[in-house]
């Protein structure tokens, strides 16, 4: 616990459990879905990951903020070098211990300063292991951070979080070929960067944009927050694209949307997968990969139509980790090959996508 922090607040869960913590972010009451992440590094990346939109992130790694927060530098494509989107996406952060002191050559401010600047509440001094175990045993639930002097707003019921995080207008990147049409459901900067680094051009379109008549060589469905079934227009457009033969790659929400478009079903998991240590395996082989994950919904592989198959399965709980079409160049992963944050072992999948576009 950091004892310089003397402003306390309560974290109240939907089941009535309360935890008292100390504020190291913006002192504002807030409500969100409680999720825990077991990653040991990468808070600048995680906090700005649009897939966490609206969620209260519980870090099981006990000390947060050790290496501070860097400047918002941009790369050659105009993408943020250190952050996955333009601002912090999660509703709040909960930690065991906050490190007000930080140390790194790139650090320009503390984690607390960054959170405060973005008006994001954060609490430390909370037994996040106890909290994670509770979420594990009882499933994801809503939580509210209550500051005495800040009223609790009634929860906003957001049917489609994707609409909140998706780009509002079409953006073009690069001039190379092949041309990728990227459906932005809350895309992480590193997905864009990995595509662009492979020499393609990217047309980034809003989640509900009708791309069916656009000219492109490959379709990319990004990650994003919330229930995939809520993305009805995306699923409809995708279904049309499946009639075509141009390559499709999806990540995370993109995996779920592809499955829904193909006719399979998705479901909400008890507490999801969030961390850097989830292992996936190619069915029927011994080939395994350690992956970064962040999802609360999954594809039910039993509902996949006959011309689709499981591409990866979770080694631990057997849940679906990716699908592919048996004939056509369509595939997607539930995990995050773009990493950032997390292990980079499956980045080669981007190369496979590019190759498939070149083959067609």
């Amino acid at each position, binding site marked *: 616990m950091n004892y310089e922090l003397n402003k306390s607040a309560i974290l109240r869960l939907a089941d009535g459990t309360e935890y008292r913590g100390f504020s190291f972010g913006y002192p504002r009451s807030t409500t969100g879905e409680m999720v825990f992440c*077991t990653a040991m590094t990468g808070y*600048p990346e995680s906090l700005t990951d649009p897939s966490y939109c609206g969620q209260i992130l519980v870090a099981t790694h006990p*000390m947060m903020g*050790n290496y501070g927060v860097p400047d918002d530098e941009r790369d050659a494509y105009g993408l943020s070098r250190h952050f996955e989107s333009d601002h912090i996406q999660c509703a709040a952060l909960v930690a*065991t211990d906050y490190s007000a002191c930080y140390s790194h050559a790139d650090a320009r401010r503390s984690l607390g300063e960054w959170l405060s600047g973005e008006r994001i509440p954060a609490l430390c001094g909370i*037994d996040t292991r106890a909290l*994670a175990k509770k979420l594990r045993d009882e499933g994801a639930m809503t939580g509210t951070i209550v500051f005495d002097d800040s009223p609790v707003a009634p929860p906003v019921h957001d049917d489609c979080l994707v609409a909140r995080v998706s780009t509002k207008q079409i953006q073009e990147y690069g001039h190379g070929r092949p041309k990728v049409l990227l459906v932005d459901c809350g895309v992480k900067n590193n997905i864009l960067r990995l595509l662009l680094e492979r020499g393609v051009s990217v047309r980034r379109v809003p989640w509900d944009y009708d791309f069916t008549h656009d000219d492109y060589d490959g379709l990319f469905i990004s990650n994003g927050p919330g229930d995939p079934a809520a993305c009805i227009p995306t699923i409809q457009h995708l279904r049309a694209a499946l009639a075509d033969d141009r390559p499709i790659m999806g990540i995370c929400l993109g995996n779920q949307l592809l499955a829904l478009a193909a006719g399979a079903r998705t479901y909400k998991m008890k507490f999801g997968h969030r961390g850097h240590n989830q292992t996936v395996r190619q069915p029927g082989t*011994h080939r395994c990969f*350690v992956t970064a994950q962040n999802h609360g919904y999954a594809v039910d592989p039993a509902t996949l139509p006959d011309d689709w198959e499981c591409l990866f399965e979770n080694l631990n709980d057997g849940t679906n980790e990716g699908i592919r079409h048996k004939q056509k160049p369509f595939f997607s992963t539930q995990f995050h090959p773009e990493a950032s944050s997390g292990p980079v072992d499956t980045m080669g999948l981007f190369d496979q996508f590019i190759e498939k576009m070149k083959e067609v």
Partner: protein
Amino acid sequence: MEKDFGKRILLLGSGALKIGQSGEFDYSGSQALKALHDEHRYTILINPNVATVQTTEGMADAIYYLPITPEYVEQVIQKEHPDAIMLAFGGQTALNCGIELHQRGILDKYGIRVLGTPVSAIMQTEDREQFASLMHQIGVKTPKSVAVGSVSEALEAVRVTGYPVIVRAAYALGGLGSGFCTNDDELTALASSALAYSPQILVEESLKGWKEIEYEVVRDGYDNCITVCNMENFDPLGIHTGESIVVAPSQTLTDHEYHLLRRIAIHIVRHVGIVGECNVQYALDPHSDDYRVIEVNARLSRSSALASKATGYPLAAVAAKLGLGYGLDELPNAVTRVTTACFEPALDYVVCKLPRWDLGKFTGVSRQIGSSMKSVGEVMAIGRTFEEAIQKGMRMVGQGMHGFVGNALDIPDLDGELRNPTDKRLPAIELAFDRGYTVEQLHDMTKIDRWFLCRLHNIHRTKLRLTACTGLDDLDAPLLRRAKEQGFSDHQIAKLALQGDTTMSPHAKADSVRARRKALGIVPVIKQIDTLAGEVPAQTNYLYVTYHGTENDIAPERDGRTVVVLGSGAYRIGSSVEFDWCCVAAMQKIRSLGYRATMINYNPETVSTDYDACDRLFFEELTLERVLDICDAEAPRGVIPWAGGQIPNNLALLLNERGVPILGTPAACIDMAEDRQKFSALCDRLGIAQPRWKQLTSLADIDRFADEVGFPLLIRPSYVLSGAAMRVVTNRAELESALATAAAVSADHPVVVTEFLERAKEVEIDAVAQEGRMVCYAISEHVEFAGVHSGDATVVFPAQKIYCETLRQMKRTARKLAEGLHVTGPFNIQFLAKDNRLKVIECNLRASRSFPFVSKMTRHNFISTATEAVLGSTLTPVHGAFEEMDRVGVKASQFSFTRLLRADPVLGVDMASTGEVACMGDNFYEALLKSMLSVGHRVPRKEKGVLLSSGPAKEKVELLEAAQLLARSGYRLFATGGTADFLAAHGVETVRLHWPDSTQRPCVIDYLKAGEIDLVVNIPKNHTPRELENGYQIRRTAIDYNVPLITNARLAAAYIQAFCGIGCN
């Protein structure tokens, strides 16, 4: 993949514990053997280390206590016909032996397959030049480095790298012979001594000040590759990782840096072709993401043992199974049992490893820490913040520290200490905070990352708030909670906050803090280490205690079936793996008797801290406070303080006074045996003789006592932080100099002075009693006369050369003491025997160092018996002392003087050895020879020679027969002045070599440096400074040039008899 090879598997152990290669290999070998046993393999183990768990009957199907050399391994191969061998579990010793077996074609000759990483891959990682070019092929950066074979080439190489450079010896463990050089003179000196160890040395660019990061990587035969753990050194590069404080997981690395290094580690491991476990060490530039790979260990290492304990991932067991052909995805996660071993542990806590040095035990040794390892043990502390972990860790080290703050330590040259660290590095940082140094200043001086310094500064700030308190009432709940979360002990809080109180004893103060915080509801919680940060329920009870929490992970078991075993703590000189063996043996028996075995220990090198060795493992401090916390929670049937050696034994009385039941000898009797005065009174009452002694407080008193009993005397100054300097003095001048080097004699610092019997035999009895009745015992005998610490002595079992009368007296005395002290459990008595008269010098009411030795030699587990004695029904005494055994066992000591730059490699009343071995034979000489070869002796080659430099006249006589035998056997003999004259007078011709300080030639030092001598027998005289200095030069040169050295005449004579008689080649 094929999984049915390796029906009969030979596993090589690591031999005796030494600096750089310690208990971690008992952990790795034991885990591997258990894993192979699970797979129904027939296992054959070669390891002369008798104190280890792995050499316990039942751990392997066949166990050979033999030297780990190609010759002996081949003998075992001929007998056992293994079809496979594992080389990765016995440290550098096993690896080097494996490479030699491969190079000599022995493995091919017998069709033996190497399981795990192929030998060719191992060899690529061992030869630095080959390794660098291998890395270059795949674009991985290694330090700029030039391999050279001579001093002149080394000087040439600096033109490529520039100064400063680091010099390293290839094929050497733990950085042996390596160091930093900033100019030609330093380089010349270091290169010539390093070249004595290795034909090839490396001159490398220095990356001083870079971060040092390690990854533990595992790869299976399907090319699946994971990193189990990464670790960050608190100390910057330049300080050997074995000398550094190490933190896991890394704390100051960004995700980008973490995964950059992770990706490279995996790339390397795939390219090299590792199957099993591999350690990759990096230097990382703190100002960019530039890096260098500085080391790759293609085997289990000290770091992998640490990573195993830090994460709960059983690296050695997994590596063993991968060697059999399993894929990672086919092996279960041993903690959750529902997930697989193919994952990377997520930690929701932080661990700190701290080294333990014993440099105070050695004369002349440099205390600076650097690129060569000197520490003898380590501790691992677990907390949820760095502050909590480091403060626990500093107490665990067991050298009188109360934590980071609250130690009154004087550091005369603070700035020098900060710039050139010694074993006092952490207290120096605290002292600097006291003197107002800023984090920034300290970072400039130490190059320690600012984050670590800031977190230490947090502790310092809390100290200031505690010292501002004027009494217990000022300790409010927020301050107490903050202090406890930062790892302050009750004792430490009491010391800082109640310093004005003169009415209470330190223990009473700590008790009052404890009572107050409990009243305020400030109590710790018990958390599990589960490998997955809570994501999946854990099925094992690998536990730690923290104040950062609101709920326990486990429900305490308060059914009275819990038996708490207190572990051995950090390995140190005098207390090592032998006590871990005792703990493991006790726990096995506890479980077999239907009780729940709970272990408390914090040593990551141990088997007792494997979570399958017990029912509940608290990886925690062995302090009164923490043991009470655990007993408060678990309400055990009792605590066993006698298995882990002196550290837990010291807690017995304190625990008992606070209502904790002790299983064993009553605490008051333990105290009676520990307290000199009380023990002497008991001996007088029982009519047992002791050497005369007195506790004295002035020099005049000591003089009077000296007049009464005469010199020599054994002087034992009162406890000082650096380790008491015990020594024998033969006259008044020596007495004065001995007292000047220790604390002055005073009422506050009394000195214990004991009569010292010259040329007395030392004999020991290890025994178990139940309610004062002895139920089994074993009697052993030292080869050396008394005066060599029993931990350094060469011990023979059963005793071969003592009178029946002495035996009888020993038994009788042991029975009397067992009865008089109401002993239940193990005990050990050391005696002096001279002219058929017996005197007791020590009685320990606990397991002793020799319990594993006598248990394994007799095949009667004394610790099992002791455990039954304290828990079970009435035992029937075992008849006899195993004198009738048809084998002889000899236990020999391993010294690590090569590591301890400038230390005088001489033996005395204070212990200096770091490990031991024991081998068996049909007779004493056979067993002795095997034992000596196991601790690094080589039978001298006849074309080389033996140097005799034999000190006092009696020792010269002692060695005469051996010298004659050497001459008859055709050895070239060299001798220094007096010895040469003496031998010539008795018909033994020698080449006369002059003393180191002589200008005459030939000089002994030149011969040693030239490699003309294969064995040095140098008996110190303890006389004039000139002789002392000359003797020191000879001994030290022998050590520095890797020439075997013996400094005791009786041992030398026996050893010479052994190798001349057996003529082993």
